[in-house]
């Protein structure tokens, strides 16, 4: 089991017409293996930049990130990705999408078949192996994306607004699935979202991030994810504790928004 570590990560973009954007400044954290960290914040707070640095798609301007002590310098199979949408391969059916990772590593289709069947059952898509991607609803497509990511048995799963494109009802169902997978597999998860409720519900740890410069404004240790599977989701989300936390985080974000607006004279 490997810890995910960020040390003083700073990301500065040079603008083509001069000037700089401080997408991230001095972000440090240590995420113990098996935890679910949600990154919440308004647009421009650097949450997706941070996720892309953890994935190895971006190299930070300064600072370092490491998984289990090994520095992250590029994409790697030990860090699986789930994107919002459009990252599945439409030219492959569900089974071939899910088996893509193992097959890139030289495994034969027949070899991977039992694993794929298991994963499809896990994500609730039993019998959908030979369906085309375009035949599936948005929620089912994200189930395939989860299964595809799990097929390589990564240590960490990185999710970039995985439920952002789904309707409210499907979204609630999928939140349950993400929690189930997290509990069952014991993998670490980092999940970016702009939904306060989702960040509180899924995260057993949560960073509220702020823009200009992008930074971690406040850290939370949360109790909800650990009991979520034993309680009705709506019941939990309507509980006084949950509502209190939600309002606290919302007012924090509103204050940040107002500061920015005041800053710009808008």
């Amino acid at each position, binding site marked *: 089991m490997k810890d995910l570590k960020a040390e003083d990560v700073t990301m500065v973009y040079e603008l083509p017409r001069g000037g700089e954007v401080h997408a991230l400044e001095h972000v440090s954290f240590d995420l113990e293996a098996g935890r679910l960290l949600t990154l919440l914040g308004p647009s421009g707070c650097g949450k997706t930049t941070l996720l892309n640095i953890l*994935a190895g798609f971006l190299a930070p301007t300064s600072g370092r990130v490491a998984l289990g002590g090994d520095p992250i310098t590029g*994409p*790697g199979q030990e860090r699986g*990705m789930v994107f*919002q949408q459009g990252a599945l391969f439409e030219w492959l059916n569900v089974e071939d999408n899910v088996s893509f990772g193992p097959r*890139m590593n030289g495994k034969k289709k027949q070899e991977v078949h039992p694993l794929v069947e298991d994963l499809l059952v896990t994500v609730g898509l039993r019998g959908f192996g030979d369906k085309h991607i*375009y035949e599936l609803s948005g929620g089912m497509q994200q189930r395939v994306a989860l299964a595809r990511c799990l097929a390589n048995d990564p240590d960490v799963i990185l999710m970039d607004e995985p439920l952002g494109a789904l309707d409210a009802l499907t979204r609630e169902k999928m939140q349950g699935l993400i929690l189930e997978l997290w509990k069952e597999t014991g993998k670490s998860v980092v999940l970016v979202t702009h939904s306060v409720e989702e960040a509180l519900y899924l995260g057993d740890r949560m960073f509220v991030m702020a823009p200009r410069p992008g930074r971690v404004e406040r850290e939370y240790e949360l109790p909800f994810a650990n009991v979520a599977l034993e309680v009705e989701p709506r019941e939990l989300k309507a509980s006084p504790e949950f509502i209190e936390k939600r309002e606290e985080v919302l007012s924090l974000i509103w204050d940040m928004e107002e500061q920015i607006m005041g800053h710009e004279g808008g």
Partner: protein
Amino acid sequence: MAEGEGGQGLATIQIETESRSSVNPFGLFRRTDSADARKTVRFGDAAAVRSKPLWSLLSLVILMVLWWAVKAGDPPLLNDRTFPTQQATWDAFIELWRNGFRNISLWEHTSASLSRVAQGMFWGTVIGVPIGFAMGLSSRLRGMFDTPVELLRPIPPLALLPLFILWFGIGDRSAVNLLIFASIWIMIIAARAGVRTVNLSKVRAAYSLGASKAQILWRVILPNALPEIFTGIRVALGVSWGTLVAAELVGTSVGLGAMIFAARPFFRIDVMIVGVIIIAVLGVLMDVAMRYLEAKLIPWRGRG
């Protein structure tokens, strides 16, 4: 948990296939197909416009009637030295079918033309697609190839025909090389456009799943670009077909264009019209075949 969603997804698919299959048997006579029948806003709903087979049939009948009309009067609107009757054209076709034209069979003329188009398209695609990929994947190669491609692309292939005849002689080689020239720029640009359509998330996902650069190229970039490459092939096929027949007028002695041109000094209007009709029908057949292949090979097109 998936059942609810799964059910929904399947239901949508079923509705789609139902509306499609129900169009086929009775579509000829229906005013609108079932899914659109209840729409009150019709004009401007461009996505719902389909080609109605009955009306296609009707326009063909009108064309045949017009042809008959210009030959029906006494004297007819167009005399036999300007335009043949339907009967004369049919007779000429049968004669060409049996005896060929000036010792060359109709099949030889037709297959010569088809084989030139096939060769031109083959080499145009085999050379053009890798160049287009290179331009789509590397800023340096993009810069390098941009100049020649932009300079050569606007040249009408037929403007080069005299040069090609000088360089490659009269015959197949000139015609095929001209067709490569006609198709290659279309294929380069189609492949380049196809590479550009790749969603960065797909590439990143593939890297995270352990794909190498070569696997990204073959398993992600190439299949992702197939719809654009296919469109390129269809466009290039149309351009090639048009270029070929013109090229054959002067460049060769065998081929449908050559046959039409050879019939002129003998005032064989009927032979010329038969040649023109064969060219038209083959053009349509090639496009139908391409559409069929497209539906078979890239069913995800337009549904991502």
